[in-house]
């Protein structure tokens, strides 16, 4: 009888572990896709603060699932119409002043997007964290959980480690810390102004702060967010970029 009890005990623990992993994957997927849905539209204001200058941009962002995304600058007027389009793992920029489209190579997905502290990849959520990283809960309190994401051995990713600060029981991230391959903290993203939409809590403000220049930051404020609205799927194409000049 004793061996049978042992097996039952082990199996029950395994199912607990499996259950927790599923839970972590769900949480991280929700965090990474919090502003996305079947379709989505957002009007955002991006405030970039650098040591020697600061800048503000207003953008319209459209999304279809996780694979299609389009961000178009509305303000300042000089840059109006400048658009970034992501389809699956590929990204293009459209420049209205020269009426040309440029493909962004995948090797530059980790580079700054439009001079901000966000990378191209942050914008398009190209990396599927829950698939490319192994997740582990490192600390759990009544109101806070820390989830550590470490890259899987065969994953080609930008970050050496990502640490999610998850607020409980809402299961939303309030802070995300990004580490390089030597596990040195490089930047952190602070998520604030949560609002309930379509049955989930969504942060309406995100702020990225580079650790080596704490006086710098990029803040994205969601002024309008609509989920699951009717969108023409054809807008997510390179040809459509040129048609939408103004």
């Amino acid at each position, binding site marked *: 009888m004793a061996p049978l009890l042992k097996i039952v005990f082990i199996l029950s623990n395994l199912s607990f572990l499996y259950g927790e992993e599923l839970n972590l994957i769900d949480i991280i997927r929700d965090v990474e896709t919090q502003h996305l849905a079947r379709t989505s539209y957002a009007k955002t204001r991006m405030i970039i603060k650098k040591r020697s*200058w600061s800048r503000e941009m207003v953008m319209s962002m459209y999304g279809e699932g996780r694979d299609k995304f389009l961000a178009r600058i509305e303000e300042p007027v000089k840059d109006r119409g400048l658009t970034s389009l992501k389809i699956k793992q590929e990204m293009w920029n459209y420049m209205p002043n020269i009426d040309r489209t440029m*493909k962004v190579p995948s090797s530059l997905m980790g580079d*700054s997007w439009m001079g901000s502290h966000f990378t191209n990849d942050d914008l398009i959520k190209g990396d599927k964290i829950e698939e490319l990283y192994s997740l582990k809960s490192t600390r759990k309190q009544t109101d806070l959980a820390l989830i550590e994401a470490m890259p899987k051995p065969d994953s080609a990713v930008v970050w050496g480690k990502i640490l999610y600060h998850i607020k409980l029981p809402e299961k939303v991230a309030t802070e995300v810390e990004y580490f390089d391959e030597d596990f040195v903290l490089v930047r952190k993203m602070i998520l604030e102004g949560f609002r309930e939409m379509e049955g989930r809590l969504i942060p309406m403000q995100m702020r990225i702060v580079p650790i080596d220049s704490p006086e710098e930051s990029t803040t994205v404020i969601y002024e309008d967010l609509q989920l699951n609205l009717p969108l023409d799927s054809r807008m997510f194409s390179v040809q459509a970029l040129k048609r939408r000049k103004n």
Partner: protein
Amino acid sequence: MLWRMALRNLRRNTRRTALTLLAMSMACSLLIVTLSLNDGNLWSLILSATEQYQGHFRIQSLLKESDPDLNHTLTAKILPALRSPAVHFSPRLRGMFLMSSGSDEDMRSLPVEILGIDPKLEAKVTSLNQHFDVGNPLTAHNSGGILLGRELAKKLKAEVGAEIIVMGQGAEGTIASGLFTVQGIFSSGDQLRDGRLSLIHLLDLQNLMNLSHRAHEWVGKTSDPLKIDDFVKDLQLRAPELSIVSWRTDLPQLATVVDHWFIGQIIVMAIFYSAVILIATNTMSMSILERNREISILRALGLKRRLILKLLLLEGLFLGIGAAILGAIVGGTLVTYFYVFPIDLTPWFGEINWGSLGFRPALRTWPQIDTLMSPLILICLLGVVATILPALNILKKRLYQALGER
């Protein structure tokens, strides 16, 4: 009286005098050319490395030294305080861009560095706008043309006339995007640099980046790059608010090579000087020993040894002066020719890349007053000094012995 006798003696046997003169003048011109070629090799090394891209020194904002922010720029207002005779300056603006070529279906994009130059001023400092595989250099007026490094053009599969799209960051966070036409494909001598560098007119880049009348750095060329450290110290005293960096700091490997060069040069010079001394001494000895009988007859006629020695020394001095004049004409002509028309050895040996340095091997002389004058003085002295020993040898012999020798 004595110098007339010496001149008459030289004229008396023209074949002997001509042969001696020829041997000594050849030795002299050989030494002049060898020393100048040796200097030319050193200068080729320095010029090849600095003229391709670097210049002899660069001036940038102190802030730029610690922070690569593209907004740390300079204007031409810094120049009046730094101007010196025989020093040329050229402004440069640089930016990192994403560059694309090809159609929507077959587009190639790469991160590149675009350097904005003033073609007229840059030509006085570097040859960046001069070495072309195909196409034409940038002209004095901004034209929307772009020059691509050879390796970059290969990666982008872009040829002359191709359309190039660039996108990057402009001043104070603005987004800079532009359209250019490939005007030429250059080779700066450094494959690594040619894989990521493109050139456009300074005004084009200033407009693109919204940085009118601004430059990230001023590169300069001095008349003597070997004395660059003293020169930079002097400039730094005049403009302490700027960061002035010499080629020795930017190209430390080259600085080490140059420092070691001087040690090697001492050995090489010792060998060449010894060879010339041997040639001259042997020639003079032979021409005097040949005159054993003639000198002994002069003694027999009552001419004193001291006077004969003076006569021979005078003849040696005249031969030395003659050889120096001939050597200066032949050597000077060759040195001038290879200075004005250096032979580019790149077609045979290719560009030599060593670390981050690229060299174009060339056969070039470098005329310097000391390398021209020292062989001339040496050959004049040798004419006299090389006479002493064989002359004494003959004069110390007993007269009957000297006259009896065949």
